[in-house]
Each structure stands twice: as structure tokens, then as C-alpha cells.
């Protein structure tokens, strides 16, 4: 009965997939800004059409840039003028306000094409020159996408790093408390990186953990206990189509897509105890990666696909190990403290982010793989599940605030931080998507 060798069947999942209506949008609370943030004036975009624009474009952009911790947008009420074209820009005004950059733009609705045309221009106040400018268009539903696209362009023009404002996050929400024996509702949610436009991919009364994005951003793998025991599923985000990929006897956990998207690293205990395996998604072939009576789990691929890092307690306490997939010889990487677990590579492959315990508190730490230097980034007692933005600049993780689980985002230098609490229920297990275009 348990020998269903990676049965790949597609579940219609009509009962499990709910209407994709957002019920629990995440909010944003900035708690700590960076003092080295770049001053930027984002002038309200001029509305060139008769009707109102359903989204406040410049507000979305200034929210994005402010959350990054790398920009400090000027409040509108302090602006001396509100230009919407290059010829109306007086650099002197903006220098007076100590602004380094100026973003202006306009929005125009066409009844003809039922679409919005947004035009924007970014200026360097000190150099007195226009840096970038563009015209983008889309329907009402893509207005937020267009705004995030402009945030990405501004971010990249100023910092030289690709913006990650058009990405998404996946996370799990829980309503009800397991200890209270109340009716529980777990949801696998996907939302924009700013927490907006969330929708439900899976709703069940049993736990869901470990969502993991496919490298193309089109699917999620996760562990669901809906059958009463843990099993790994993949799900196409757009269609909602689900595939059961692993339901062996014992553990089926910690799915992690290989960088080519063709394989999953996962944890199975079918051969006795928690070991890491690689599952080829097309052929269903399993290859065993670890052999040890200790716990081996939480694998994560290096961006080049040549090695995996994972958690093992083979030394007597959980520590982070790395092995290349050709000789499968584990090498211990962490030595500070008795608990280092769930490592994740940065996109550039140069550092690791993981959960580190010190003085009884669980925090997110990072280690530079070249120097071995380790820094702790967070300070609340129960910080978990670090996941990096694809541009390596921000890190999302789960933490406890009061008695509630919330998501928090911290810049990788630890200088800026914000929370993404849900209006109700607990939020946990965040996973930041790769770049989607």
C-alpha cells in the first residue's frame, strides 16, 4: 500500500482549491529604516484622462523603494513643485530639498484600447540630467505590475542591481490553534512581494509546510499532511493543477528544486531514517544522496547545481554541511553554537543564510563561504525559514510577534527591516520567488 513509487497522478483538487479570492492580505509596517538611504522625490503622476486611475502609481513605487531600505522618498507635502514633464523640472528646487533623484510621470487611459499608458522619467538632480525614461501600458489589472516595473527600473538605474519588486512570495497561513483543538484552516498563499493581490493555492485542515518555487517561477512544491501523513506535491500556479510526487512510507519532506528545474532534492525515511534523495521529475528515478544514521534534511542547491547544502545532526547537534553531487562527501560548514539549520544559498553562490541558535534564541544568520565569516541578522527569539529575494538584497523570514506568527523582511546588511503581518491568523514559511520575467 505504501509502495506507490512516486505516483504521479493529477488531482482534480476541486475540493481543495478554493476560489482564488484574497481573504487575508498582508499589511506592511516599516520598523527600521536605513540611515544611508538615497533621497528621492517621486512626484504624483499626472492623470491625463477624464476618469480616476484605480491605483495610485507613485504611491506603489514609493512604497517599493522605501521598503528596500535603500531609498528615502520625499513626502509629497514638502515638494515645491509637481512637474510632470522634463521641461517643468527645476533642478534647483530639488537640490534645495536635498534630493538626489527625481521621478516624474503621467498616466493616461484610452477608452479605445481599454488600457492605461504610463510614461515616466528619472533625473539625477546633482548631474542635472535625465537617466532613464519609458512608456509602458497595460489593462486595469496590470496597473500594479506596471508600477512595480517602474520601481525595478529606478532601483536598477540607481543601485546597479536588478530590482525584485515584480516578484512574488509564497507562504502558509493558519487560522485556529492546533492546541485549542479548534477547526483549523491552513492555506498555501501566493502574493506580490509587497503582500498585495494574494490568492489561495491550497486550503486544508491539515498542516502545509516547506513551499519551494520552481526556478521558472511557474510551480510550487510543498509538503501537505492532507492525507494524514506528509506527502510532497507540485502545483502549477496558473492552472492550479496538482501532482503528487512523493508519498513513501515515513517522511516525505523538504522539497528543493534543482536550478535546471528537472529534479527535486527531498527528504525520505523509507530506508530507515531521514536521508536526502534526488528525484528526477520526468523519469521518477530516485538517487540517494546521504547515508548516515543521523538526521539529514533541508537540502538546498547551489546556483550552479553542482552541490547541495543541508542540515545534519551527525555530529550530535544540527549543523550545516555541503557536498558536491559527484562524490557526495559531506563537509561541515558551521561550528558556532549547537544549532545551525536549514541553509539557503544566495543567488550569487557566495554566501549561506540559515537558522542559528545562540543564548536560547533562534535567529537568521549568514555566512560568507569564502571567508567563513558569520553574522547574525535578526534578534527576535523564534526567527525561522529564511528566503532570499532573487537579487540577494532582501531576506524574508518568519517570526513571532505577540502570540502571532508574522513575516518579516530584513535587508541582507541588517540595516532595514519591515513586517508583513496578516490581518488575522498566523503567517509562516515564506518563500521568495525567482525573477518572473
Amino acid at each position, binding site marked *: 500500500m505504501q509502495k506507490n513509487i512516486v505516483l504521479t497522478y493529477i488531482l482534480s483538487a476541486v475540493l481543495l482549491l478554493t476560489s482564488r479570492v484574497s481573504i487575508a492580505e498582508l499589511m506592511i509596517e516599516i520598523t527600521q529604516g536605513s540611515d544611508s538611504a538615497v533621497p528621492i522625490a517621486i512626484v504624483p503622476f499626472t492623470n491625463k484622462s477624464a476618469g480616476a486611475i484605480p491605483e495610485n502609481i507613485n504611491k506603489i513605487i514609493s512604497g517599493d523603494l522605501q521598503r528596500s531600505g535603500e531609498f528615502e522618498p520625499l513626502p509629497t507635502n514638502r515638494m515645491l513643485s509637481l512637474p510632470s514633464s522634463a521641461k517643468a523640472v527645476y533642478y534647483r528646487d530639488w537640490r534645495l530639498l536635498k534630493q538626489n533623484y527625481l521621478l516624474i510621470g503621467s498616466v493616461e487611459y484610452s477608452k479605445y484600447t481599454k488600457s492605461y499608458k504610463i510614461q515616466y522619467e528619472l533625473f539625477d538632480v546633482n548631474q542635472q540630467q535625465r537617466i532613464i525614461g519609458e512608456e509602458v501600458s497595460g489593462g486595469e489589472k496590470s496597473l500594479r505590475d506596471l508600477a512595480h516595473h517602474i520601481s525595478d527600473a529606478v532601483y536598477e538605474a540607481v543601485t546597479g542591481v536588478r530590482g525584485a519588486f515584480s516578484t512574488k512570495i509564497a507562504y502558509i497561513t493558519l487560522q485556529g490553534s492546533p492546541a*485549542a483543538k479548534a477547526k483549523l484552516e491552513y492555506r498555501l498563499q501566493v502574493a506580490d512581494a509587497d503582500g498585495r493581490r494574494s490568492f489561495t493555492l491550497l486550503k486544508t485542515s491539515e498542516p502545509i509546510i516547506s513551499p519551494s518555487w520552481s526556478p521558472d517561477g511557474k510551480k510550487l512544491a510543498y509538503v501537505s499532511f492532507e492525507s494524514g501523513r506528509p506527502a510532497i506535491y507540485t502545483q502549477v500556479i496558473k492552472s492550479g493543477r496538482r501532482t503528487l510526487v512523493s508519498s513513501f512510507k515515513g517522511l516525505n519532506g523538504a522539497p528543493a528544486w534543482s536550478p535546471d528545474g528537472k529534479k527535486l532534492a527531498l527528504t525520505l525515511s523509507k530506508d530507515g531514517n531521514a536521508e536526502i534523495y534526488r528525484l528526477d521529475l520526468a523519469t521518477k528515478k530516485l538517487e540517494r544522496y546521504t547515508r548516515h544514521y543521523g538526521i539529514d534534511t533541508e537540502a538546498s542547491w547551489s546556483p550552479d547545481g553542482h552541490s547541495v547544502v543541508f542540515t545534519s*545532526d551527525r555530529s550530535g547537534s544540527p549543523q550545516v554541511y555541503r557536498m558536491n553531487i559527484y562524490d557526495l562527501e559531506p563537509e561541515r560548514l558551521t561550528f558556532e553554537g549547537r544549532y545551525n539549520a536549514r541553509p539557503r544559498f544566495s543567488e550569487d553562490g557566495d554566501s549561506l543564510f540559515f537558522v542559528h541558535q545562540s543564548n536560547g534564541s533562534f535567529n537568521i544568520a549568514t555566512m560568507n563561504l569564502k571567508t567563513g565569516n558569520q553574522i547574525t541578522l535578526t534578534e527576535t527569539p523564534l526567527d525561522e525559514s529564511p528566503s532570499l529575494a532573487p537579487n540577494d538584497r532582501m531576506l524574508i523570514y518568519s517570526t513571532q510577534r505577540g502570540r502571532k506568527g508574522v513575516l518579516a523582511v530584513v535587508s541582507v546588511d541588517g540595516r532595514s527591516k519591515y513586517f508583513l503581518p496578516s490581518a488575522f491568523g498566523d503567517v509562516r514559511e515564506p518563500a521568495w520567488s525567482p525573477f518572473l520575467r
Partner: protein
Amino acid sequence: MKAISTKNALALIFSASILAGCASTDTTEDADTNANADANGVAVTDQAGGAEAYGQGDGANVAASELEAQKAEAKRLAKEKEAGALREIRTFYFDFDKSSVKPESRTVLMAHAAFLAANPNVNVTLEGHSDERGTKEYNLALGERRGQSVERFLVVNGVARTQLEVVSFGEEKPATAGHDESSWAKNRRVMIQYK
């Protein structure tokens, strides 16, 4: 030399009396638990189990006088009741990041083992759990390892492996919601669920 061994002997006697004290306290509490269980009808299964054991006891008592048989029967029933009471305890606790069965769990686990060994058609699920600290997937593996420790204990004591199934829920199903050591201690557990 002699002084030391006397001292040791005294220490032994002392600790034995403490243990005895503990044991008798436990029994009293367990008897209470059982009375409650009887009232709730939970112990019905145990009585059915007792009935099976009765057939075996009957044969052994054939030669004995009726009075002695009654005495033995009363003693057996008391023992049976005690074992049943012990089996009402179905949750076993663990230390942080540890999965070894604690010494204080052994007596009760032995009672479950004896019952399961005598009733090979009864199956149980061993549900492994951890507290909320640490990572979810590591805790899932830890919960399983705790379940496997209990499984091994039961198998060593005569239970067939086919009667046992280990399922781990990691930190996902805490018994209590608090964020302190006393809550965490209650959440690091294996629960025997009779099917």
C-alpha cells in the same frame, strides 16, 4: 573500603525507597485515571483484552482450591486493572533535540508492549512531535526519530513491527500553545494512538 560500601548501601536503600514512593504515588494516580476512564467507557477495550488473558489464567488455576483460585483471580484482576490503568497513559515526553525514551516512560511502555504482544490484531500509530523551536523540517525528522525510538522499545519488548506505524507531525501539532519551557516540554512527545 567498608565505610564506603555501607554508605553506598545506605544510598541504595534510600533511593529505592524514593523510587518505591514514586511508584506507589503513580499507581494511586493511575487508578484514579482508570476510574475516570471506566466511567467514560474508554477502558472497554482493555476489559476485552483482559478477557482474552483470562482463558490462559484459567488453565493454570485448575489444580488450585476454589478459595485460592478466587484469590489468584482477584490478584490477577487487580494486576490487569493496574496494567489497564498504565495503558491509559499514552503520551511520552522527550528532552530538547533528543529522541531517547526517558527512564520514567519505561514502565508504561512495557504495559503497552505486553498488551500489544498479547493482542497481535491491535495496531497503533506512534505520533511523533517536537516543540516549536528550530526548523520545521528538522523537527519533522526529529518527531519521526522519537516515534522510531518508541517503536524500537515496543518491538524489543515483543510487539510485531507490523502492528506499529510511525507518523511525524514535527512542530505542527503542539499539545499546548505557549512559548515557554513548560509548554515546550509538553509538546516534545510521542503519542500512542490505538486504531
